[in-house]
């Protein structure tokens, strides 16, 4: 039964465009696309946090890197999504490799702080890019194209988000179940024991960081295309915090839970935001209750994992 949960989740996401939504259709599709894009970002963070045991507090940096890949190429009249993705993933991967190699020399609170510091560097670096609007951000001339076709418009954008999310989810599932994933989970549970077995903890965690960063940069590319606008705000530390909340709320290590977490946070923000501008006053206590009562996160409701 529990194995069916991700299948049902993706089936529901695929059914949304066919619902009779009337005038609300555009709004709903946009909101659900946002859930999927942040779900993708949270999923990539779960690979670090839930599978690899790394509490990265700078994951939004990769969202910003992906978004700025779109902006920088847009300013140079390059809009092909293939090129954009290659640049975004390449840049995010290199950044993760360089900063991860340093951050992984630390553990615990120090690791959290150092990932935060690197993300803040990215945030301020993009804010200083006056050619791309500095703090004010940059409006795209056009959305990215797929082999010359403007497929990322209207419902095409929704389907693109869903397709990327499904592929990313399957990829993460495969990685988590592979020999690499098992070794990584061993490192998460007990690094000293894993090393005594013959695993190289730092190398395993570094690879997970690079893969997670590359996946998250894809979410950044999608986010920029959805908004047709890019700004340093994509990489704030509050956004890194939101992603952590999504993963923990959804159930760290479950992978599909990250998508639940994204839906929960964004839909609650939308719903409560309509009722009151002080929606965080309600959101905070709800979060506390969730963490206390749903130990395994939203994905763990109705049974214990493993």
């Amino acid at each position, binding site marked *: 039964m529990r194995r069916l949960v991700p299948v049902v989740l993706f089936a529901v996401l695929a059914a949304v465009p066919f619902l009779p939504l009337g005038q609300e259709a555009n709004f709903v599709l946009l909101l659900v696309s946002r859930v999927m894009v942040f779900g993708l970002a949270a999923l990539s963070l779960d690979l670090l946090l839930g599978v690899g045991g790394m509490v990265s507090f700078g994951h939004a940096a990769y969202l910003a890197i992906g978004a700025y890949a779109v902006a920088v190429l847009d300013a140079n009249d390059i809009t092909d999504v293939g090129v954009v993705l290659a640049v975004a993933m390449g840049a995010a991967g290199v950044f993760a490799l360089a900063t991860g190699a340093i951050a992984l020399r630390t553990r615990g609170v120090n690791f959290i702080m150092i990932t935060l510091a690197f993300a803040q560097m990215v945030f301020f670096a993009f804010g200083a890019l006056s050619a791309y609007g500095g703090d004010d951000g940059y409006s795209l001339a056009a959305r990215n194209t797929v082999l010359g076709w403007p497929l990322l418009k209207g419902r095409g954008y929704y389907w693109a988000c869903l397709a990327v999310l499904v592929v990313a989810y399957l990829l993460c599932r*495969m*990685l988590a*179940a*592979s*020999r*690499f*994933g*098992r*070794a990584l*989970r*061993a490192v998460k*549970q*007990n690094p*000293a*024991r*894993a*090393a*005594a*077995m*013959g*695993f*190289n*903890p730092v190398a*395993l965690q570094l*690879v997970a960081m690079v893969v997670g960063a590359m996946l998250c940069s894809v979410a950044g590319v999608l986010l920029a295309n959805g908004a047709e606008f890019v700004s340093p705000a994509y990489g704030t530390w509050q956004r890194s915090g939101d992603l952590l909340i999504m993963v923990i709320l959804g159930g760290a290590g479950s992978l599909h839970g990250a998508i639940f977490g994204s839906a929960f946070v964004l839909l609650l923000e939308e719903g409560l935001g309509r009722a009151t501008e002080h929606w965080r006053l309600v959101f905070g206590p709800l979060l506390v209750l969730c963490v206390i009562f749903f130990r395994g996160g939203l994905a763990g409701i109705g049974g214990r994992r*493993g």
Partner: protein
Amino acid sequence: MAEALLAIAGLSKRYGALTVTHALDLEVVAGTIHAIIGPNGAGKSSLIHQICGTVRPDEGRIRFAGVDITRMAPHRRARLGLARSFQITSVLPEFSVLENVATAVQAQGGSAFRFCRAAAGDGVANEAAAHQLDRVGLLPRAGVVAGRLSHGEKRQLELAMALAARPRLLLLDEPLAGAGPEETARLVGLLREIRRDCAMLLVEHDMQAVFALADTITVLAQGRAIASGPPDAIRADPAVRAAYLGEAH
């Protein structure tokens, strides 16, 4: 004479004014059990840590199977055939018992960077793991999550994990600590059986077990080896009696 499997020469480790290992020479010959005894604070665990690579010595050399491992990372030493049990039991608490051992098998068999096939479907590793569990008598508990095992069972599991790596040298840091008499007898029997496959460096407080198992005994006191030799010679050594055996018995 061929070089010993493990050869330690002039090993020293200081923490400020405290010298925990003092110009220590020690050898473990293949196919034998070398026991290390000594009062608390003699530097036994520090020595194990230096051999495993979790603590860097200040001076001296450690050679294992003909390779200088003095500055090698722990996971690379493990891949050379150095396995250990921890003084405080150390398993992978979220994995099942079988998964714990199968992971240890996989850690030795080729690269960890394989991203496609599911690790749980590795029949060879699972079979090897089941064999080791059977050996330590834990096979009936194979499906249990390791975190829920009793203390004694975790000890057995650790041993199975160490053996699953097919090590050339097994470092055992107080494997009998906290074990009841029945369990002790069982474990001693098991260690005796294992010695045919791999050499052991045994740190243990249970003197009966040490004298029953060891081929060579080294007595440590304040980081120095005050005596080393076959059990009978150690038992008769007056310095040892004064430093250690007199206190313990």
